[in-house]
């Protein structure tokens, strides 16, 4: 009861405070993926109705999951530490998992909004169709979010300052988005390269998500990759928990 109230009030506070602070940034968070979709759809194809939008919508959503974990959680935590917010909450009776869970809920709500907007624009303008099983789509999306939140938390744990967290997140997010089948198909690379890139958790997640959502594949056929993502998540969580500093 007490824990539930803690979680609800913390989550409500996250929404109210972050929206108040990041109002403009949230607009861009929602608008940029649509901009990417439109830009890349026309850049990589002759126009609407081509296959590339079908490729791009899940790819861009996947890239947003990555940056949500690295920026939205990792860099945010480093900022909180730098501003001494973390040490202040550390001395209260709130269990750490409540703090993380409410942060993740906030990021997931933003991701959901991004996904809904992308899918809607994709469907209306580019005739993208999501034909997969909704439960499986949600499952892979949640697993991917868990993976990149846990990996992002490592950034938040290890970076000494907001600035260094920012740098680490940039170095990871931008190349990964281009090397993980998000914006451009990696099978355009030589076979050896694309095989290597498929070992990245980001590639495994984005490919699985794409196949399940727009190709209607069954998640059951992706057992190995789901297992890899689970392992990445476990590794990320263990490393984060071991290295996280509140002060």
């Amino acid at each position, binding site marked *: 009861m007490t824990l539930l109230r803690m979680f609800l*009030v*913390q989550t409500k*506070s996250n929404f109210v405070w972050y929206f108040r602070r990041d109002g403009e940034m949230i607009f861009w968070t929602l608008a940029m993926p649509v901009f990417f979709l439109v830009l890349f759809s026309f850049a990589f194809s002759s126009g609407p109705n081509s296959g590339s939008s079908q490729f791009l919508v899940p790819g861009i959503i996947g890239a947003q999951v990555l940056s949500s974990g690295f920026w939205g959680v990792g860099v945010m935590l480093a900022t909180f530490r730098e501003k*001494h917010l973390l040490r202040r909450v550390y001395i209260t*009776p709130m269990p750490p998992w409540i703090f993380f869970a409410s942060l993740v809920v906030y990021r997931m709500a933003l991701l959901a909004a991004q996904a809904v907007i992308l899918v809607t624009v994709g469907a209306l303008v580019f005739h993208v169709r999501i034909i997969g099983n909704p439960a499986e789509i949600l499952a892979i999306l949640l697993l991917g979010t868990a993976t990149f939140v846990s990996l992002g938390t490592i950034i938040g744990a290890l970076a000494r300052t907001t600035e260094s967290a920012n740098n680490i997140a940039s170095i990871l997010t931008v190349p990964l988005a281009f090397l993980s089948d998000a914006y451009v198909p990696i099978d355009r690379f030589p076979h050896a390269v694309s095989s290597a890139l498929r070992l990245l958790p980001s590639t495994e997640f984005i490919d699985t998500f794409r196949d399940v959502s727009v190709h209607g594949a069954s998640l059951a056929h992706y057992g190995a990759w789901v297992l890899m993502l689970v392992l990445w998540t476990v590794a990320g969580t263990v490393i984060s928990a071991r290295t996280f500093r509140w002060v």
Partner: protein
Amino acid sequence: MHPDETSAPVANGAIVVDGLVKRYGELEAVAGLTFTVQRGTVFGLLGRNGAGKTTTLECCIGIGRPTAGSVRVLGLDPTDRRDLARLRPRIGVQLQATSLPEKANVGEVLELYAAYYGIAPRPDEMAARVGLDGKLDRQIAQMSGGEQQRLALALALQHDPEVLFLDEPTAGMDAFGRRILWGEVERLRDAGKTIVLTTHYIEEAERLADRICIVQRGKIVAEAAAAELVARYGGDATVSIAADGFAPDAELQALGGWTRAGAQWKLATRGEPGLALAAVVTRANSLAAKIDSLDMHRPTLEDAFIAITGETLEETG
């Protein structure tokens, strides 16, 4: 430091710090601190910035891990995960950097912290207590440093903790804020709470603390009640008089040591300077000596501080 001033760790103290050492790499921030804070008392850690006061306090609340030595708060060990979990609801902390979410408003933060402690929020009451009544809608980012400090105090108090840790609580506060904080500390002490505060303001330590612990370069150099520190280290009280034809008689000679510089006579006494002053004036009048100037100085805590540490509290001093 006299050995009898070291409070040996006492098992039933609210806070027992024993041989605390904290090193950050080469820097030894705290170099072996031992003290006990009795329940229901106010304990002041007085010293310059960088003396190790905040580090000591951080070790008491589980933020800093001692390099050596031990800390017990309410019998619990802040370095032990389970003990710390039991300790957290029972302590209230006002940190130096106010560390509040800048886009939150006063009412929201009070509500959130009430949820952290599982208590009913009392935003109006708490805001009024720290002089923020009618300001529940104010955003932290728009508040002055002093107002933020007062909100931080309200967050430390809202769950009615048994032990309070206040780190430089009046730094950046105006006279209004200081009055509020001092009033709260006195009220809480009367209610039986234990309070540890760090400060580099002499008046604050003298007014609030039952015991003052003077910290210099990570070590305790004296620990006693303010009056005791003054009596032991403050030196003699003095009475100075400049009056034509004045000279102390045998009775005045007995009060202490006299020195003379021109027409200026000066008495250094261990006795009550007020009485000495009266006797000096009586003597001058009986000699019909016209008094040009008259001065009395009672030793202060600042005198004691300077005598003990060899420096003033002012950073530039």
